């Protein structure tokens, strides 16, 4: 399983580079050409095309190199990692953390800065395994500090919240 994961990881990365490079080359061909008095100038597609070509070349090189270095990496990886990460509590925390961070803009747009941020901070701290009392107190401090630093001093504006403005 582990061996498969490492191989898949390297293969996915190398292949992704090749796909990304190919995409950059082909998509940039849709960019307009620049002409001046009969001369075709280096247009907007020039640099992305160069990057795309280099990316494909390095992607292929990476795939070849990682294939030959496989055994070395696998040994090291197997020594460092025990158990199945994808079934662990850590993986669940990882997913919950990413999902919560991605949801913060929606939460704050709906509940407003104060309520949204307070709730976000409490959930975040619970994901990070903080005690309830610490989570509540710290969340209150974070909300207060953010308001002073960003709203009062730096004049950053935050959403008021749909539920507070829908009247």
């Amino acid at each position: 399983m582990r061996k498969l994961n490492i191989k898949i990881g390297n293969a996915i990365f190398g292949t992704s580079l090749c796909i990304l490079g190919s995409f950059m080359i082909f998509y940039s061909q849709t960019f307009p050409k620049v002409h001046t008095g009969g001369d075709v100038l280096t247009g907007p597609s020039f640099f992305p095309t160069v990057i795309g070509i280099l990316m494909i070349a390095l992607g292929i090189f990476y795939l070849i190199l990682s294939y030959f270095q496989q055994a070395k990496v696998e040994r090291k990886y197997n020594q460092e990692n025990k158990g199945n990460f994808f079934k662990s509590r850590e993986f669940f925390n990882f997913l919950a953390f990413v999902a919560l961070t991605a949801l913060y803009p929606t939460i704050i747009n709906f509940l407003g800065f104060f309520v949204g941020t307070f709730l976000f901070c409490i959930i975040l701290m619970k994901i990070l395994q903080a005690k309830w009392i610490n989570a509540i107190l710290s969340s209150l401090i974070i909300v207060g500090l953010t308001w002073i630093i960003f709203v009062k001093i730096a004049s950053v504006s935050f959403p008021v919240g749909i539920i507070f403005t829908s009247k």
Partner: protein
Amino acid sequence: MTIWSIIGDLFSLKVLIPWILAMLFGLFVGATPGLTATMGVALLIPLTYYVDPRAAFAMILGQSFTAIFSGDIPATLIRIPGTPASGAAVLDGFEMAKKGKGALALSLDLLGSAFGGFFGILVLIFTAPLLAKFALKFTNFEYFWLGVFGLSMTAILSRGKILNGFISALIGLAISTIGVDITTGYPRFTFGNPNLIGGISFIPVMIGLFGLSEVLKNLTEKQEMSSPAISGFEKLPLLEAAKILWNYKIRVLISSLIGVFIGALPGTGADVAAWVAYGVAKNTSKNKNEIGTGHVEGVIAPTCANNAAIGGTWIPAFVFGIPGDTITAIVLGAMLIYGLRPGPNIFSESKNLMDSIFAIGLISQIFLIPLGILGIRASGKILKLPRNIIWAGVTFFSIIGSYAINNNFFDVYIMLLSGLLGFFLEMLGVPLAPLILGLILGPMIENNLRVGLIKTHGNFLPFITRPYSLAIIIFMFLILFGSNIISFVSRVFRRKNESF
């Protein structure tokens, strides 16, 4: 006016109070991810209209110096660069902090910044017209090579994994092509999304790559959440730091010189200076194998360079009215209000004010030390909080810091994606620093290459044959391969001697 009367004027309350307050503000702005030194200056400018011109410059310069220094504090302690100029400070600073030497790293940052700033201002005083004339000889061809030179640091920053380093830099370059093409105005890779028209701001990317990825890494580890060890913040090892700086005096001087020179080139700035100085240190130092693993030289080089660059950025601003970076670009607009007309005659026409500005630059470095100690101690106290609260705070301020740049939640998604990208890249052993380098230098390389090729009708030869271009190429070659050439030559000589 004598030097004493200038200093006497500067120590009057109407100058001193706004000066110190602005420096404290800079300390706070720099240490808060998402608030940059540029943003700090933009916030200060309206206030400077109401004060004496000397106080105005004291506020702007003082704020810039403290902000650039204090950006190193979160970079060292929580792996989030406070300002773009502190990107390179993350590398060895955070590694030192992990070893329990955070207080020493920050002491080095503080004294190195003060020296770098002092050096930058001295160069500004004595060589401003000369350096500005030299900088103006640089055209697109030279700027292209300068960008390539910066990017070549990838090979050095890759810690032996050169292929992975170049892949990382390529990803950065690819990201830098998103947004409106400056030369033709055509939107590239925006897919109709208006948020992408202005391109991807590198601050959320940097916060995500270094800050959020560290939180993610901690989340996936079985052991209790870890953060840098806290010790020595009550009594900072400033004397030890001063001794270290003295032992590495050549590195301090070289890095400061690199900082001033790069700062003096319009459109570059403290961030590029710090990366180049770090790269040069990593490739030319006797301790090159240790730099990157938490070595003092890796802390000294970028911190001296980024503060020295501030003095450098004012050289073209004062002499030709050409901004050296975004801060000077903002201040240039306000200079006439302060009674300054930028140009080659500025040093004679506004002699008194210019002398005061020079004195402000130098004295700010002295003020920086006690104020910096204050900032470091406060940060040390924050780090004593439980680890999970610190990481929650890091996450939240990463989010808010990314949002605050443009008041746009799109940047939060960019930060989150960068965090995930950084997490996976680190898992695969791909270094993150070259990605930032590619993102910062991408537009500089592309625009100058294209404009240069347009000028020469597609002929690349002038990129190599111009004297200044050639000088940069040779310099780059020496930096990259100099140590290999020297060791090869010395090996050949040794063999010859042995055979005799």
